[in-house]
């Protein structure tokens, strides 16, 4: 069965690799946004040095990590869920359901392949451009990079689990756009795409840092910046892992309920 999901993941990778122009456009957009946010952050950190415990170099690294991971961890959606919702809406999901494979595992594999491609295709270049232009903080050696990649993999998994749950709602609502909008807005804010979560004051910050969206960008960025030392790193991974498990479970429950009760659209 693992070979099947490996094949699905490889397919996910290659499917997106066929769209080179889209990749180039994405790289361009991420780079432009990276510059815009960088200058905004520079202005902010000029006024408030060490805001949220970040130096200006840390803050700039945070900006470019965000741009690199935007499609990998799905902070703002735009990933597999659009396709899945469309398949549920049109009834093409019937084709996925009669296969001798698990729906969630299938889509997770496709997402993993796609994310791997997005990380290489859309992550590396903006990050390199940003590093060249701003000389921001880099991880301490290969170990630091490796720790970061693990956090990214976990973040991407949590991102999948959140959006899978969102997509499942389409079985009941048929038009998933409303839920997608809410999830998009929630993701934008609570993932720390606008501002790092450690900048948020008081209770809002406390809550934001406990929510699953913190797994997508904040935790990988802090791992990158070396904010976790020793067992703290294991704790950060555990935080991501727990959310991944909980949300995967919820997704499975929703999937089971959907396939038991709900109408498969179309003739």
């Amino acid at each position, binding site marked *: 069965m693992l070979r099947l999901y490996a094949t*699905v993941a490889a397919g996910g990778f290659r499917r997106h690799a066929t769209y080179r122009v889209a990749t180039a456009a994405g790289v361009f957009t991420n780079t432009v946004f990276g510059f815009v946010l960088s200058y905004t952050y520079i202005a902010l950190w000029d006024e408030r040095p060490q805001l949220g415990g970040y130096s200006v170099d840390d803050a700039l690294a945070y900006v470019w990590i965000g741009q690199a991971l935007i499609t990998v961890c799905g902070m703002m959606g735009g990933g597999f869920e659009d396709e899945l919702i469309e398949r549920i809406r049109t009834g093409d999901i019937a084709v996925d*359901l009669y296969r*001798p494979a698990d729906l969630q595992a299938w889509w997770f594999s496709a997402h993993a392949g796609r994310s791997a491609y997005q990380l290489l295709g859309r992550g590396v270049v903006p990050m390199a451009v940003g590093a060249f232009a701003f000389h921001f903080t880099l991880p301490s050696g290969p170990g630091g990079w490796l720790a970061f990649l693990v956090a990214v993999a976990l973040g991407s998994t949590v991102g999948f689990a959140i959006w899978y749950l969102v997509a499942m709602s389409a079985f009941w609502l048929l038009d998933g756009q409303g839920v997608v909008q809410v999830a998009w807005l929630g993701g934008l804010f609570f993932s720390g795409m606008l501002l790092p979560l450690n900048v948020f004051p008081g209770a809002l910050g406390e809550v934001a840092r406990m929510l699953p969206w913190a797994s997508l960008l904040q935790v990988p960025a802090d791992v990158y910046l070396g904010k976790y030392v020793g067992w703290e790193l294991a704790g950060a991974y555990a935080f991501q892992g727990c959310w991944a498990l909980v949300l995967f479970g919820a997704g499975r429950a929703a999937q089971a309920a959907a396939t038991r009760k709900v*109408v*498969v659209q*179309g003739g």
Partner: protein
Amino acid sequence: MPFIELESLEKVFTVRVRGNAGLFRREKREVRAVDGISFAVERGEMVGYIGPNGAGKSTTIKMLTGILTPSGGRLRVAGIDPARERTRLAQRIGVVFGQRTTLWWDLPLKDSYRLMHRMYRIPDARFRENLDRCVELLELGELLDVPVRQLSLGQRMRGDIAAALLHDPEVLYLDEPTIGLDVVSKARVREFLRDLNTSRGTTVLLTTHDLTDIEQLCSRVMVIDRGRLMYDGELSGLHAVGESERLLMVDLERELPPITDVPGARFVRSEGPRQWLAFPATTSAAPLVAAVAAKYPLLDLSVREPDIEAVIAKMYGGTREERRESLR
């Protein structure tokens, strides 16, 4: 034991409709998509499953594949309850939805076949053999490296049929496999299905709106309407049930009053010396011709077979009428 067995199978959907009560009040209404259908299909049969739009054909197929759970009744395919053991059953069935595709849209056709190879855990030798056979018979050779999105509808359909057969399914469900295809593509698909059924003994259940599919492929046909089985039997038997008529066209020597004195025939219309008479499809034309020839100066004649389409249209129409009657 029959290979496919349905006993009073039901599927009821609850739909909410906006009633007259107000903007936010919605009334619940039950739709009986499949309303107590029973039939059995033996291994190796090729059966047509026809009915108008919304008759419950696709709902039945979805229950047979296990992706919809029946609301009532009993259902077994190869001894398995599809909804409970969907994944186990999937190894033994093949499905082609004419209007949907199982192929990877963005990637070359052969990538989708590699996926099937893994998904159904097909032994390598068997996979090669089956793929080669499908490629040859469905003429897919030049298409294997083409991304699916660039295939024509006919090509894509052949690609989908091949994808459904690589794991040697014992039964193949086809939901409108020739929809939208041109005459040549239709013929090719039909020929392939006929060969599959005769040489491999694959059980085939076919839904279609194209009655030529049925006429050319299926010895048995089931007609459903409004979730109920209206007819189950040989295609030719439909005529008896549908009270269909054959048409006798006679050319007389000269223009004469309508022929109304021949028993068993009904005058339809005339055009100069030519007249049309209708008679039940189940009776022989010979005595009728003899009777006409005995009384009238007959020059020439021809008999037109009943149109199966008209028969079925009549059948659907009939059920609609009955329904309207019963509602009154």
